[in-house]
């Protein structure tokens, strides 16, 4: 009966976002600026510049948008968001320290919940934008132009890949980094007020093996239920994007059959805090966070 009958797609959401996260939305939300709409974006010469991100992309002045245009814009936006959000995380934690005293465990949890809600909205919005682009029939999938000077994708991308899923993972990783950045900075600034990590330890089901010539602090946080799923650790990034990512991170199975996280820190890896996410290897669903702090010897 359903053949040829008009049917709507299920909406991404039906309810308004009423929580505080809308405070984080700023310029361009009316559509007056910013290429958040595919047709608006297509109509811009030098589309990335129109969105206020770094310049250098070629505009889609003829034909439809190519993936390289879209991809470049997305990556630039993502990198900008990453830098900005990690910076914000640190700044906010420092403001808390300066003005309103150490946060309680409740406040920490509250912040985390609110921020995850915000990141969900951001991801949903971007995916909607992507879906709209797909409806415009993006013809081919080509890698971004490395000459444009943007950072590499944090995930492998090949033609034919499920682009939507990859972008979703990328976004979740970026959002997770902001949240983790904020929470870790709070923990660093308020060591005495740090929430009881026993809960995190209880949730984590993987042992961690760190190979490093320098003092290294590793924090693995896995969501409940992650222990039964195939896990994949993505490369870890510093908030300073000039530093190379920490690549050699993987889940492995030991001789006793138990899974563990293996981290190898190269000797020339700059000291810093590196953040990343743990995903389901098959579905790409984020299942936890990973933070590695490499200190000076």
């Amino acid at each position, binding site marked *: 009966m359903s053949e040829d009958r008009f049917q709507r797609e299920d909406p991404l959401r039906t309810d*308004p976002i009423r929580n505080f996260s809308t405070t984080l939305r*700023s310029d361009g939300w*009316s559509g*007056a*600026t910013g290429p*958040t709409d595919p047709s608006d974006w297509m109509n811009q010469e030098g589309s990335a510049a129109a969105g206020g991100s770094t310049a250098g992309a070629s505009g889609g002045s003829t034909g439809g948008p190519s993936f390289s245009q879209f991809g470049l814009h997305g990556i630039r936006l993502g990198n900008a968001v990453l830098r900005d959000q990690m910076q914000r995380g640190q700044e*906010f934690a420092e403001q808390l320290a300066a003005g309103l005293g150490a946060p309680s465990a409740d406040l920490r949890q509250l912040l985390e919940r609110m921020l995850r809600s915000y990141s969900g909205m951001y991801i949903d919005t971007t995916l909607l934008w992507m879906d709209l682009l797909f409806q415009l029939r993006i013809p081919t999938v080509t890698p971004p132009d490395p000459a444009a000077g943007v950072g590499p994708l944090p995930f492998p991308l090949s033609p034919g890949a499920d682009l939507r899923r990859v972008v979703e993972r990328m976004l979740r990783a970026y959002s997770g980094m902001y949240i983790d950045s904020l929470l870790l900075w709070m923990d660093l600034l308020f060591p005495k007020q740090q929430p009881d990590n026993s809960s995190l330890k209880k949730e984590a089901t993987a042992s961690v093996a760190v190979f490093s010539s320098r003092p290294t602090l590793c924090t693995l946080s896995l969501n409940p239920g992650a222990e039964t799923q195939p896990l994949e650790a993505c490369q870890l990034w510093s908030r300073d994007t000039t530093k190379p990512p920490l690549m050699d991170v993987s889940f492995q199975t030991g001789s006793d059959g138990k899974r563990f996280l293996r981290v190898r820190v190269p000797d020339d890896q700059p000291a810093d805090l590196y953040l990343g996410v743990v995903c389901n290897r098959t579905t790409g669903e984020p299942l936890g966070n990973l933070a590695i702090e490499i200190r000076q010897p």
Partner: protein
Amino acid sequence: MSQQTPIRIAILGGGCAAMTAAFELTRPEHQGRYHVTVYQQGWRLGGKGASGRGPADRIEEHGLHIWMGFYENAFRVMRDCYAELGRDPAACHIATWRDAFFPASEIGLAERTDEGRWSSWISSFPAMPGLPGDPLTSENPFTVSGYLWRSARLLLTLLESVRERAAPGNAPGEPAPPSPLSPEALVAQLGRLVRYGGLATLAGIFEGLRALQTLFELWSRLPPQRGGEGLLAHLVDALGRSASRLLQETAGKDPELRRIWTIADLLLTVIRGSLRFGLVTDPRGFDAIDGYDYREWLALNGASRSTLDSAFVRAGAYNLSFSYQDGNLSLPRTSAGQALRGALRMFFTYRGAFFWKMSAGMGDVVFAPLYEVLRRRGVRFELFHRLENVKLADPARLAPGEKPYVEAVELAVQARARLGEYQPLIDVRGLPCWPSRPDFSQLEDGERLESEGWDLESFQDRRQVGSRILKVREDFDCVILGVGIGAIPHVCREIVARDPRWRQMVQAVQSAETQAFQLWMDADVAALGWTGPPGVTLSGFVEPFDTWADMSHLLPEESWPAERRPRSIAYFCSVLPTPAAGTDPAARREEVRQNAVRFLERDVRHLWPGAAAPDGRFRWDLLHPGDAGEHPAPEGPERFATQFWTANVNPSDRYTLSLPGSARSRISPLDNSYDNLILTGDWTACGLIAGCVEAAVMSGRLAAHALAGRPRLEEIVGFDHP
């Protein structure tokens, strides 16, 4: 279905929400992808916003319609509509949206004094930057912390005005000037104030308020922190106690100071309640207190009895929105969450002017331009089509996994055009307008329909000349249901019977009947004894008509002979109590007439002392009799028959209420339970849970988004709102 196949949309209803959906779906950007047909009973569009031209082209409205300065979506649509309409100013004096709407900032509240008399408090709201419908390019103004900051700022301004009024030129010490305090210093300052009784003095109150304002400002720029709420709540309590004592001592018998104190108390209560209930951080926003009645919630948070009974609360939250359950004046009920959301948006986010009045009837200014633009875009209008039933497909025939859907739409054909298409608009000195009555001469057998008194907008009048069934795939692909909530049980019987969500919706989302009358007077408002400014809109007055608007600006729009022109026009409206039994429209209309006559005889002299004869009775001769022909104008109360009045009792005419606890029962236009049926109307879950033009337009835009993905949700201003 192919991406390129045109999608046929049947829009059922012609009110604000339905017309907005049509407008959005037929924007040129869609390149004709949506083929829209509007089915509407009777001869005109507008729903609750319909108006018509009667004798002497006088404007006859469904009720009083005034647009708020925060109606961002509604103004956006109208601005786009007028821009596309491109009227020639030389040919039509209402050519642009600025011709159509003008600022009206004089607001009045009526309240009864201790001596039992009525007095009016008139406020003129300042013009705010920008115009409604301008792009919002700055930071999102819609945050609870932002509202609290504005509340603190207003509180400070009010108290400064009290100080100035109580002791002109006598500064209360030297309060610390606002300074860019660090959060650390701010907290220390607040702690000092609270601990050491610093708030016992007026200077301390000001210092505390400035600190509060600064803290909210800081809060509005940072993600909120629950840790600060305890201190803030403590501060607000202390401020409230001190300010209350001080103001009550100062106010004495000064009514102006008492009014200011009422607002100050209300603001302190809102701030205190917002902190206590954690509204800044609650992911439900103001919906977290949807279960409370507004006055109940204010009382819970320490509002004084005088504030709860004040005109400010009564008029602002109840009278203007007809918020009386079943129309029962002893049952004022409105959701605290929506009342607060609406009040904060109304006072703190308006642009240009607080109110905007229309330069002609709402039908002329809103629905005629929409009709013209939509016609140009190719939208078809099937007038005289009364919706009878929205029929679902038999569940037994659904494929596995297939959602239920609308299989057919059953319509009664009330009349047929004699020659081609019915032309619904009339020309009033160059302005396309809707008539108050259908043009029977355009209808088949129109003379008979007219002589038999067919009422083509009455729910009770079921007469028809034929019937029509629209079938899915043959006549439509998707239905947008845009009738009023009161009509849903009648036209969606199957769905309501089958779907528990719909049953819950029609039970919880209630509506009220309303009444209105309009007077054309042979005296201007000054001669009537009104001492306030002309053009005022006043609420909080005595029932059965608590709201009055001076609409004399409409006189030039009507076609009165120069020598027999009225001097003023007055609109009155209120909720109409629902009788226990009997809904005969004629009887209800007679009830409204009697209410109006009684109101004029007994109450209106409190507003218009000049309208009372020496014996205190209403001077009926002040009513402009219109064109009585060769007959002498009626005298006494009979003269009221020459005026206009209406009982809005048809199911689709009922005003949508926002009863406590009902928000969760609303269904969103984005809901996809029936994948070819989209709901739209101010009764849907459209973000703004209120019976008003803006909610309807938001809902219409959401309905379009549900189909076309445009406008983007981010463009529907105020949808993502706490």
